[in-house]
């Protein structure tokens, strides 16, 4: 497999892997390869960011993990049990929000949750109403519980979907684009909720196409593009893997670029009064001194820390919103 995949296929599943897949592949009937040989390991207790542009195979992967789609090849284990084979024992301990919420518009928010809870044969009907009320409360929908779901805003629907995932104590939460359609306030609330859940020991598997979302809440991340896993690991390690960039702000951009190249900087890019480059292997102070010595009027000189996006661009060589 091409690309700097961090993990090799592991023969044994670590005790703490909540999700582990080996060679997971899905080819749709049209011949389209949606997921290609995925080897994914999600450690227990992590908040795992699953990144990739739209169409990169994230949702197909999640559907395979949830037993909605059968893999063409390879295997997947969730909570240590094979999927989709063990769906009936695994899924009651997994809460999921897949591709946005889906609700019965003619039912109230509360009745929607009752309906989903009834579908779980392991859910005790005696505690159903309390659990539904608690879930509604947790996502801040207690006041709107009696309203018909079709009258809900997109954000409220998203919260209701989240509440459905929280009807039971879960060991794993799979949240596919959970902040879609939410305003910034709502996004913050969701992130807080995710952190709360994670601190309770629940593993959260969070898919998103928003990098900063992943950076803010995730401990681990994996990046997919065109059906393949590009990289996975702890967020800190991933960012560290990509080098930061030297940014010089100056009215003398052309001269600055020349000097930077002289100093051994690569990939020099000029954008108006900003010149960015890969920092050379020497003390930045010397680089700055060389610039000043060459008569470049330096307004700003900084070394910007690498973001996950930089890591991603470095790995794929393309922008993030390109559909695979």
């Amino acid at each position, binding site marked *: 497999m091409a690309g700097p995949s961090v993990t090799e296929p592991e023969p044994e599943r670590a005790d703490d892997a909540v999700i582990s897949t080996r060679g997971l592949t899905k080819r749709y009937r049209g011949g389209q390869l949606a997921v290609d040989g995925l080897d994914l390991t999600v450690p227990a207790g992590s908040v795992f960011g699953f990144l990739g542009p739209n169409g990169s195979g994230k949702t197909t992967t999640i559907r395979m993990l949830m037993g*909605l789609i059968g893999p063409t090849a390879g*295997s997947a284990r969730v909570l240590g049990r094979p*999927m989709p*084979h063990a769906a009936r024992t695994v899924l009651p301990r997994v809460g999921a929000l897949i591709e946005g919420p889906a609700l019965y518009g003619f039912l109230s928010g509360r009745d929607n949750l009752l309906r989903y809870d009834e579908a779980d044969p392991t859910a005790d009907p005696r505690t159903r109403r309390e659990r539904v009320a608690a879930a509604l409360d947790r996502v801040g929908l207690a006041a709107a519980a009696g309203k018909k779901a079709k009258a809900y805003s997109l954000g409220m629907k998203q919260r209701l979907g989240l509440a459905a995932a929280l009807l039971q104590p879960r060991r794993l939460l799979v949240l596919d684009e959970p902040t879609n359609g939410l305003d910034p306030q709502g996004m913050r609330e969701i992130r807080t909720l995710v952190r709360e859940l994670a601190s309770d020991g629940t593993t959260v598997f969070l898919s998103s196409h928003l990098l900063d979302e992943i950076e803010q809440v995730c401990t681990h991340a994996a990046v997919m593009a065109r059906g393949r896993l590009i990289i996975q690991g702890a967020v800190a390690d991933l960012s560290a893997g990509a080098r930061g960039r030297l940014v010089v702000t100056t009215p003398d951009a052309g001269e600055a670029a020349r000097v930077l190249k002289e100093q051994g900087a690569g990939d020099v890019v000029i954008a108006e009064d900003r010149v960015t480059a890969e920092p050379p292997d020497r003390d930045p102070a010397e680089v700055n001194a060389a610039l000043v010595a060459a008569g470049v009027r330096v307004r700003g000189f900084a070394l910007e820390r690498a973001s996950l996006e930089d890591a991603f661009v470095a790995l794929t060589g393309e922008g993030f919103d390109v559909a695979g």
Partner: protein
Amino acid sequence: MAPIDSDDNTTAGAGEEPGGGRSRAARYVVPVAVMGLAAATIGLVPALADSGDPDLPKVTAEELVQKIAESDVQQLSGTVRISTDLGLPDLGGLESGMMSGMAGGPGGGGKDGGSSADPSAKLTELASGSHTLRVAADGPDRQKVSLLEDAAEYSLIHDGKDVWGYDSKSNEVYHSTQEGGERPEKDVPATPKDFADQALKAIDDTTSVKVAGTAQVAGRDAYRLVVEPRQKGSTVGAVTVAVDAETGTPLKFTLTPASGGAAVVDAGFTKVSFAKPDASTFDFAPPKGAKVTEADEKAAKAPEPGRKAEGDLAKELDGLKVIGEGWNSIAAFDTGGQGLPTGAEAGGDLGGFLGSLGDQVKGDFGSGTVFKTRLVNALITEDGKVYAGAVTKDALVKAADAAK
């Protein structure tokens, strides 16, 4: 962790969740198996239920005919299935005319005339397709024949001196009172016995009769009596009558044409019981609101528009004469100068339909058209004479020539 579970490799299949291609296809084995099982059941159960021909003491044809004649079954009830396949779809009135002409010809006279229009109209329906009847009899005074229709039923009930006809579809009642021993259910040859009686009447030197093994009919052991015409020229191939070994009651009547193929008439009990029917079977009181027609009024009234053609034909048949004897009897009558029946006369699209089916023939009598069915052929001459019978085309032409 513990050793790898054996289910590790089962990425697909064994569970109830989606899997790989092979196991997906394998699931369809279930509906296919169900269908195969059903097909096998439909095909095999009748075969299994048919426990083979029963082993009965040998009898001669004469003894069997004697047994039928002596049979004195007073009480029976059962279900009769009649299938008629004359080789033409739904001939309506004309066909019924031919049928009663044939059936009544050798036996003598259409005694029903116009007075029991309702029962004869029902007879018309029997003349094509498949029908289910229920019959019940308790002695000579109490009989009931019901023609089961879709969500309706036509019942003819003879109880003492009352004869009731009840058509549930229109909620109409026909009533007549009988004098003497006339048995109204004879108007409708419903039971295999009625058919068999007609066939046995024809037994004379023109006929060969033999016993051809045994059969099971309606769960009873029966002898098979085969009656075949000796004369040439008949379209009748053979008549097979299954006779109940115990009571001598004919249980099944099958008429196969000389031309081969499926039976033209197949009438047999599918269920039969020789126990006394429930007395309430023969109770009848006109339901509230039903239109009751007394036999006398009915006779006086003009036939209903819808049945005009049949009525006309019935009247015409009154004037028929019979040429020949035995199997080769030919009914002849004069329609009164008109040639081919027009559409209006014969009822709807029948006329045009007939015209396209006829064969033109010529002979000493002039020329005419022969209409063929699998059993009955009819020659309609240009001058409006009609010759009909269960005989071949040549026999009809010969008869027409002779009549000239």
